[in-house]
C-alpha cells in the first residue's frame, strides 16, 4: 500500500482497515516504512517470498502508481529476483492491483476526461505480472474516492473484503 497523504485519505484508509482485519493478510504501508524513500530491499524481497499473492493498493496519480511504489518496483523487483535468468521468486504468485481514482467511472472512456478505459492505464502493471510469470487478477477499482458517500464506501469495502478472501482462501467458510 502506498499513499503519500494517507492521513487525508478516506478510501485507501477504508481499504487498509479491511486488509488489516482479514486473516492471512500482511499490510506494508510503504510511505510509513520508508518516508525517506530509502527502501530496505532485502526485507521487501523476503516479504514477497513469504506470500502467495501480492496486492498493490494505491491511489492513481497521473495514470500510474505514486512515486514510492514505483521506486519500490524499481528496487525490489530486480532482474535475477523477479524476472530474467534466475528470477523466479514471484512465479506462480497472484497479482491484484487495488487502486482508487478521483473521478467517476464515466471519466475513463473515449472522449471523456481521461480518454481511455481504466484498464488501459493498468496495462504496464499487467505486463509486469506477465513478465514475472505471475497470475494477473482482475483489478479492484474504487472510483470517485473523495466523493463517495459513507454507505457506498462501506459497500466497496465489503467488495474488497471478498476479493481478499478469494486470494487468501482463509475466510468465508
Amino acid at each position, binding site marked *: 500500500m502506498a499513499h503519500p497523504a494517507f492521513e487525508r485519505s478516506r478510501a485507501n484508509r477504508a481499504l487498509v482497515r479491511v486488509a488489516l482485519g482479514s486473516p492471512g493478510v500482511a499490510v506494508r504501508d510503504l510511505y510509513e516504512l520508508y518516508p*525517506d524513500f*530509502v527502501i*530496505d*530491499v532485502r526485507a521487501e524481497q523476503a516479504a514477497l517470498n513469504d506470500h502467495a499473492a501480492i496486492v498493490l493498493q494505491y491511489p492513481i496519480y497521473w495514470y500510474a502508481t505514486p512515486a514510492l511504489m514505483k521506486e519500490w518496483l*524499481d*528496487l525490489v523487483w530486480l*532482474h*535475477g529476483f523477479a524476472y*530474467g*535468468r534466475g528470477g523466479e521468486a514471484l512465479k506462480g504468485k497472484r497479482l491484484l492491483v487495488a487502486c482508487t481514482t478521483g473521478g467517476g467511472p464515466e471519466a475513463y472512456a473515449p472522449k471523456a476526461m481521461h480518454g481511455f478505459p481504466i484498464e488501459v492505464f493498468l496495462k504496464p502493471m499487467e505486463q509486469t505480472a506477465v513478465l514475472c510469470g505471475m497470475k494477473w487478477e482482475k483489478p479492484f477499482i474504487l472510483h470517485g474516492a473523495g466523493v463517495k458517500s459513507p454507505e457506498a464506501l462501506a459497500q466497496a469495502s465489503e467488495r474488497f473484503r471478498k476479493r481478499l478472501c478469494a486470494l487468501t482462501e482463509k475466510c468465508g467458510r
Partner: protein
Amino acid sequence: MTLLVQTLVYLAAGVIAAPLAKMLKLGSVLGYLIAGVIIGPFALRLVGEQADVMKFAEFGVVILLFLIGLEVRPALLWSMRKAIFGLGLSQIVVTAGVLAGAGLLLGLSPRMALAAGLILAMSSTAIALQTLEERGLRQGAVGRASFGVLLMQDLAVIPLFALLPLLVPAGLAAHGVGGDGGGHGGESLIAAFPAWLQAMVSMAAIVAVVVFGRYIVQPGFRFIAKARLREIFTAAALLIVVAVAALMQAVGLSPALGAFLAGVVLAESEFRRELEADIEPFRGLLLGLFFITVGAGLNLGLVASQPLTLIGLVIGFVAVKFAVVAVLMLIARAPSRTTFAVATALAQGGEFAFVLITFTLGAGVIDPDLAAKLTAAIALSMALTPPMMTAYEKIADKVESKKPARAAPESDPFEAEPDVIIAGYGRFGQVASRLLEGSGFRTTVLESDVDQIEVLRRFGRPVHYGDATRLDLLRAAGAERARLLIVAIDDKEKSTELVETVSKAFPNLTIVARAFDRLHAYELLRAGADSVERETFEGALSLGVTALRRLGLRGRQAMRAAAAFRGHDQRMFDQLAPAWAGDFDENYILASREAARTMEQLLASDLAQLRPDADSWSTDSLDAQLREDARN
C-alpha cells in the same frame, strides 16, 4: 501552651483527619473542619484562643489568591469581566437585600439586618475553590463563574469597610473603629487621611505593585536564579506575597486582593511555573490550618443551647444564597448543571464574614448576641459545603442519567494544557520544539539557564524558568495531561535522572530523550525513555553526506550511502543493547567487537553496491543476459 506543642497538635490533627476524610469520601476540607472541632475548646480542649492562629491561617487565603492570580493572565481576566461584575455584583446586592429583608421580618433593627445581610452574602474563597478543586471542577465553567463571584466579593470587602461604620446610629459613631481587622483595614496607616487622599494612596499602591512586578521583581528573580539557591527562590517568592499583603494592609486594601494582583502581574513571567511549584505547599498547609481554626472556633456551647435557632439560621441563609445564585445564572442562560454546581459551591458563609463580624461588632453596628450567632452559623455552613457538593453531584448524576446522553458538558480550561513539555531549551531543544510548534502542537518549555532565557525572551519566545528534574514543577507545567516529554537538557546524569523519575511518576507520558552517546542512549532506554536520539549522530552523518558530494558523488548516491550506514548502525545499536549492563564489562566489549566486525563487512558490501561502477540500479546482470541471448 508552647508554640511547639501547638504546632504538634495542629499538624497531627491535619495529618490524621485529612486522609481519613478523603478515604471516607468526605473531602479534605470537611476533614480539617472536624479535626478543628475535635481539638477545639469545646471538645478535647487541646488548643485555646484561635485569634492568633486564625490571622496566621488567613494568610493561606492570601497565598491561594496569589496562585490563582498566577494562572490568570490579564487577557483572561478581561474575558471574565462578565462573571466578575455581572454575576458577582448582582449576587452581593440581591443576596444582601433578600437576607436583610428576612432579618427585618425576624425583628432585627434595619441597620443590624443590613449588616447581617452583607456579612452573610460573602462566600468562602478557600472552601469553595478547594471543594471544586477536589472534584476537578475548578478549571471549567463552574470554576470560572465561582471564581468571578468570589473575586467580586473580595473587591466588595473594601467599600464595605468604609460603609459599614456609617450604619452606626448618629452620636454613637466612634472614631478609629476597626479593632481586630484580621488583615482588613484595621491596621491601615492611612485611616486618619481624608477620603480622597486615601483613595489616591490606594491607587498609588496598586500601581506600585504592577510596576514592581514588571520591572523590579523580574530582574530580581533572574539574579536569584543565577545564584542557583533553591531555598532562596522560595524565600523570595514568599517575600513577594508577604510584601504585597503588608503593603495592601497598610493602605487599607484587602491583602488577598493585592496578592491576586501580584499574581496576575507575574502570570506572564518566565518564573511563573517555578513560583507556583514553590508556593503551592504553603497554600495547602495554611489553608488546612485555616479550616482547622474555623472548626476549632465553632462555638459548640451556643449550638447546644439554641440548636433550633441556629439550624434555622443556617438552612435559611444557605437556601437564600443558593437560590439567588441559581436564579441569577439561569436568567443569564447558563446550563443547569453548571448553575447548580456554582450555586452549591457559593452557598456557605465566608472567611471575610468573620472579619466583618469582628469589625462591625467593634464599630457598634451589631450586638454581641447576633455576632455570636452569625459566627456559629457561618462556621456550620462551611462544614456543610463538602457534603452538599457530594449530594449535588449525586442528584445531578441521577438527573443526567435519565436524560439522553449529551456531549461532555464543559472543557473550558483556565489555560490550554500543553501537548508537549520540553525540558531544556538550548541548541538542541530549540530545533525540536520549533518543529513541533510549527506542526501545530502546544508546547511548554522549561529551561534552567537564566541567560539563555533572557536571550530567548528578547526574541519573543516564552520560556519558563525551572529545573525540570523537579516533579512538582513538571506537574505545574501540566505533565499529568501532556502527551509527550522531550528531554533535551544539557547534562548527562540529570537527563537520566529526569527520565527515571518521570517514567515512574507519569507512566502515560511518552518520553523522547536526547542522548549524548551510545552508552548514554542505553542508559536512557533502561531508565524508561520511549525513544532516544544520539545528539551528534544525525549531524555527523549529514556532514558525511556533504563530504561525499564534495568528493564527486551524486546527491542521491551520497544520501543512500548515509541511509545504508544509518540502517547498519541502528541494527548494531539494537543488537548490543541487551549486552549493556551499566558499564564496560567483558560481555559488552566482546559482543561489541563481534558485532562491529560483521557490521563492517555488511556495510562495506552494501556501500560497494553504491559506488559509481556498481549502483543499486545496476543493469549488469540484465546486460549480460541480453548479450548472451544475442549471441545464440
